[in-house]
């Protein structure tokens, strides 16, 4: 069974024929070719597949692609504008928040959602917003510092 899916992906309208049982994660990675969104635990526990849906963070591994009908989806690939990293991405780069890099797209998208809602969050708010994102390098200090450094000027 397939459905015609029309959505806005990283600011551009798209229409695709997708199987009803296709996960948003597989749609992004396999059908569209946006592999920035990572497949981690694949069971809704680690946050590596976090994308934004209408500005809110969502787990692409436990969302059906067809549920995105008419929605606005953003992946980590959508943040850089004109080849320049967003302020948040730049701070992950400069403050060494990327570490091994696997959880980074999910961390950045969860942090991006927070900064859109609250451009100047405190450390506790940052930690709460990233609570569903696991880093197996076991270092959250650099990640929180990166988001703190980007706070006050998200999206610039």
């Amino acid at each position: 069974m397939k459905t015609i899916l029309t959505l806005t992906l990283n600011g551009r309208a798209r229409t695709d024929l997708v199987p009803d049982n296709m996960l948003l994660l597989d749609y992004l990675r396999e059908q569209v070719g946006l592999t920035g969104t990572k497949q981690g635990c694949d069971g809704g526990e680690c946050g590596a597949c976090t994308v934004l849906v209408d500005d809110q963070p969502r787990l692409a591994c436990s969302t059906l692609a067809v549920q995105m009908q008419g929605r606005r989806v953003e992946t980590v690939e959508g943040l850089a504008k004109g080849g320049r990293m967003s302020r948040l991405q730049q701070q992950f780069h400069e403050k060494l928040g990327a570490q091994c890099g696997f959880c980074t797209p999910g961390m950045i998208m969860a942090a991006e959602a927070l900064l859109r809602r609250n451009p100047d969050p405190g450390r506790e708010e940052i930690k709460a917003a990233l609570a569903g994102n696991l880093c197996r390098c076991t270092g959250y200090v650099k990640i929180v510092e990166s988001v703190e450094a980007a706070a006050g000027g998200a999206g610039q």
Partner: protein
Amino acid sequence: MNLLPAFQCHRPATLEEAVRLKAASASARFVGGGTDLLVNLRRGLGDPAALIDLTAVADLATIRRDGDELWLGAAVTLAGLARHPEVLAAYPALAEAALAVAGPTHREAATLGGNLCQDTRCIFYNQSEWWRQANGYCRKYEGDKCHVVLKNDRCYATYHGDIAPVLMVLCADCVVFGPDGVRRLNIAGLYREIGSDHLTLAPGEVLAAVVLPPAPKGRRAGYAKVRIRDAIDFPLAGVAAALTRDGDVIGELKVAITGSNSAPLAIATDVLSGRAWNDETAPILAQSLRKQASVLRTTVVGASYRRRVMQAVARRLVDTLWQQD
């Protein structure tokens, strides 16, 4: 994780259409945010021919006031519930419990109805296909033997929802919509003590809304939850309490628990009415908890710890409510 089974996904715009679609397919399942159901389906737990996505039914995603009652649509997300001004003002314990569910990203997707109707859990059930197969499956799904309770009279999988016990102590009702019309029942009536069939919804019925009665003056309520990782996990023990003080004695105390039985459970507290809350009366609540809760080896954490920690957090929660201004 497995691929999802080859189901058809319907996205009805009205509840009537959703119920009609359900009537057409016996194995069809309703889905909200998918944080419980989709993960289970990928573990091979279920093989529905169709999913009926309720998140496109606009009426279900609203919170509205009707007289002195507050109606919460079943497709309201937990994040939306936790930041709704009327919920925060009159029922802060409900917002507290919603914020205690999983992580922030789950709460943006997970719905109130999905949380209340979430599947029961067990270490012999929430496992991969090969794990369950190696164990000869279990009574909850595809097998005929319970590995937790050997007398095997029923499935003992545990209910771990955080919202239901709070709604029970707030005396909420739920509204169920089905092919034969609408019925309204109290939250406890939604559940029964059978792990493999813990919801009393008839085939074809769907949970449409939760109705909160007006909050009595002076009532304090709260929710205490114990879990392995405070940022994300299901409750090992969850206790909801609502207390009305009558001067120096308890006017009314309601307590409900989760993470212990196959259904959320109201705890008998009548004998505490008219007495002060102190070191002498607190053990009465602990005794009721011991008597009614039936904590078994259904999680990786041992049953005796879960029993004891439930009594401890219940004491601490009622202590806090008793001292609140």
